[in-house]
């Protein structure tokens, strides 16, 4: 896939889905108010980790692509 991955969109997509999921769990009573204080940050951390991993992966892929191009020239 030649398109670049939009990290910000991915992070916020995960974040929004996570918030909606936490809201659903809280509303249906699966998690308590105490657990909410854990699951909120957990969503943030998950979104952040996804963002980091994807940034690293795309930057590595870009570097590989650049290397490939250089190799093609030779």
């Amino acid at each position, binding site marked *: 896939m030649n*398109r670049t991955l939009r990290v910000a*969109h991915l992070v916020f997509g995960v974040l929004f889905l996570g*918030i909606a999921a936490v809201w659903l769990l809280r509303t249906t009573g699966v998690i308590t108010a105490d657990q909410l204080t854990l699951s909120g940050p957990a969503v943030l951390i998950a979104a952040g980790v996804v963002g980091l991993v994807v940034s690293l992966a795309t930057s590595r892929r870009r570097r590989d692509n650049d290397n490939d191009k250089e190799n093609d020239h030779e």
Partner: protein
Amino acid sequence: MTETDERPSEGRPSDPQPQEGPRVSGEEMRDLGRLRRSRTDRYLGGVAGGVARHFDIDPTIVRVLFVVTSFFGGAGVLAYLALWLLVPDEGTDHASIQLKGDTRRTLIVVVGAVAVLVLLGNAWGGGLGFWRFSWVVVVLGLIAVVLAGRDRGPRQQSSAVTDPAAPEAGSGPDDAPPVYGPPAPWQPPVPPPAPRPRRTGIVWFWPTLALIAIGLGILAVVGGSQHLAPGSYAALALAIIGAVLVLGAFMGRAGGLIALGILTVIALSISTAVGQIGFGFHNQTVRAVPATAAEVQPSYHVKTGSVYLDLTRVADPQALDGRTVEVSANAGQVHVVVPDRVDVDVDANIDFAGDIDVAGENRNGTDPQLHTSLDGGAGVPHLTLDLHERVGQILVDREGALR
């Protein structure tokens, strides 16, 4: 002043009020893109001076507003710092965070809105977990919008230079190996491709709105007959936005959805908080003074208002033995008076914030809980009180304490 430069019709010698200087029209005030930080009237970043000039008011008023609102959740500090970063210095078009005019205008409005919401949030006393959590998202969103909306003008130019599709005459010998074949026939130079219009990236925005509309419609039809939790619609919209954003991250052009999602998070937290507290305009008062144990209901509930339950008039307290009475209110006061000669187990909790007082034993703050037993002596009936509120006050008194 640069503003007079931009308004050639003003400041003429024939101006009837030369002492007052140019006035600012309403249209100019609404155009927040014109906002500049003042160079001449500044203590820190010239934000207050600039804002005052933009809205044609006394800078002292603006400074006082910034300072005063800083004490309410830091709204003033937040707004000041944001404007300092976003608004260009007078006479220049360069801000610390360089943005396109439209993005800057939008962000200035968002900064104002966020500051107002911070003020409101603080005025409501905070303490709402989800509400506070949503601020983290709002701040993150602002950062993302800033990063996404950064003016990429110079970078586009440099990328055009290094565009591999446009061969360059000046490319070094290392880049292109020399070709020793017969010279190619002359061809007219290919005009450089026209710069591609900047992809606005909002292709998914309107379809997503349509999807949300469909989703909310379905939810309304399906859930219409049942009681939907407050915030259901906002949560569904947020889930749709999140899903499209994740898709859009791979397929591109999901612009505008982050901002929409942030607004939805705000809507979700407001509707959840308001719904859970159950603000209503119908203040109810339930006052029950049952005369017999049979008249004592298993539960008493109001949405907003107060419940007063006096069990001291129960003629046959022995019949209360083993019973559990549940009293609850979303917001307001729960007040129960129990007879002296009854053992009472009290289980009291308030979800968000409030004050619990059970025969002098006190808990307050956010999410207070109190489990306690009141001893009525030997051989007395045993009653359990289950008291619950979202916001407000829970009071349990002994009959004797009120005399």
